[in-house]
């Protein structure tokens, strides 16, 4: 099972608001690449992005592509509808990325039922088209 979108509400929820923030995450997503902000001074990762590095206070950042591998850090299963855009039930996962310390990513699973999800389960990123313009990074079981 995976999240089902109601196309009627695309504009309400699926167009990320990134123009006001120089956000390489969404620019990466447009090229089907998962990228995170990394301080060029001290190597600290930050997600969501920031203006200044919390560790060295530098403002030099690079956007580095992730291996996309991670583990389930927490999750929830939405069973009560909050908006008709999203058909319940669906699962939300918080994935701790393997190679980017301190980076966790909220997303959906594409290939498993809520019952199959467990803490520390290994997952990897894949891209799923939700509108003509956008594909979102989602996760699948490793080896699945």
């Amino acid at each position: 099972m995976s999240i089902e979108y109601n196309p009627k509400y695309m504009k309400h929820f699926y167009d990320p608001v990134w123009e006001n923030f120089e956000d390489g995450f969404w620019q990466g997503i447009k090229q089907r690449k998962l990228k995170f902000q990394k301080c060029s001074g001290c190597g600290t990762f930050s997600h969501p992005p920031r203006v200044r590095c919390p560790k060295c206070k530098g403002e030099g950042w690079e956007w580095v592509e992730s291996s996309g591998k991670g583990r389930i850090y927490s999750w929830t299963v939405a069973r009560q509808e909050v908006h008709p855009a999203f058909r319940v039930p669906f699962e939300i996962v918080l994935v701790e990325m393997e190679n980017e310390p301190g980076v966790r990513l909220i997303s959906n699973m594409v290939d498993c039922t809520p019952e199959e999800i467990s803490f520390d389960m290994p997952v990897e990123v894949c891209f799923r088209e939700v509108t003509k313009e956008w594909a979102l990074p989602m996760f699948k079981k490793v080896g699945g």
Partner: protein
Amino acid sequence: MSLKNKACIVGIGSTEFTRNAGRSEIHLAVDAVTAACVDAGLEIDQIDGMSSYGTAGIYAAELAPDIDVARSLGIPNLRYFGQTPWGGGASCGVVAHAAMAVASGVANYVVCYRSLKPASGTVRYGRPTAIPAEYRYSYYMPYGFASPTMWVATMAKRWMHETGATREQLGYVALVSRENALRNPRAMFYGRPLTMEEYLHSPMSSDPFTLHDTCLENDGAVALIVTTPERARDLKQKPAFIAGVGFGTSYDSHSMTSFYRDSIGLPECTEAAREVFRMAELTQKDIDVAQLYDAFTATVPMQLETYGFCKYGEGGAFCQGGDRIRLGGELPINTSGGMLAEAYIHGMNMIAEGVRQVRGTSTSQVKDAQNVLVTGGLGVPTTALILTQGN
């Protein structure tokens, strides 16, 4: 120089709590402020300050702004007005700002209020209509991760995993709140008992939460009046002294989505706790009764840990069986029924209940309550108060 005991709460007022108030948020606020003035023995025109709050970002529309409430009350001028963001996290901070305003002489009588109409109005908390303009929501909303219940569920599930806390332990928080509401005729759940059986068999809304783990949805408003101890002497009520205030953010604080620190937890509370106890010159042992912000059951044991009533990982066990947190126990909590069972007024009703405990007029009165801890919303920048007899 300290703010300790430089201000007190001298009036509390409330509308009825209902599923359909049949009037606007401004009208509800006017009614609550009027009731607070009557309670205090003040004329409306003596009010010269307003401290209010809203939900920055996600539910932008604030439907009872201070100038509209003042205008409808016929207050000619506000010498002080201040607003605090972050929804329920602001609740105690709103009172702290009022205390700072009167202690510094910027204003004499400051009204704090919250007016909400989610049950029948246009802004329904937990029911977003679109992705908010604030950039951070782009990381959540497109995945259907779109309500406070889901956000806090994700934090709570991790906390339960790390600490071994159980659904049954959360259930006791819901049950004790309900017991308190059964003694409180104002409560939405007055006359509606809850059993553990019902709690455990209720369907999940967002794992690990059921409807019994989340706060009420209702219309209503609550107002408080803050002034100096000197002015309080001429008023009707026994004052509730503001012995301590605490504000807390923490490393990498977000609004309900602080998912990026070593342990998700509620470190904002740890910071607010340190400040509020330091100012009040009190410790956890001195607290007779606590009103712990309970938009969600799990955040109550999480606060028992972060406010220092027990160690990390012990909050669930603290709630087991309910005896330690119910009336007569070592730390009675949420004696009006809180937001799980009295009403959801973004914590303002819990501050009013703290005042009643100091006055000795609660429907679940703790005998000789001297020191009351009240906390603000969780998973957001948060605030806390200690109210006392002022001795």
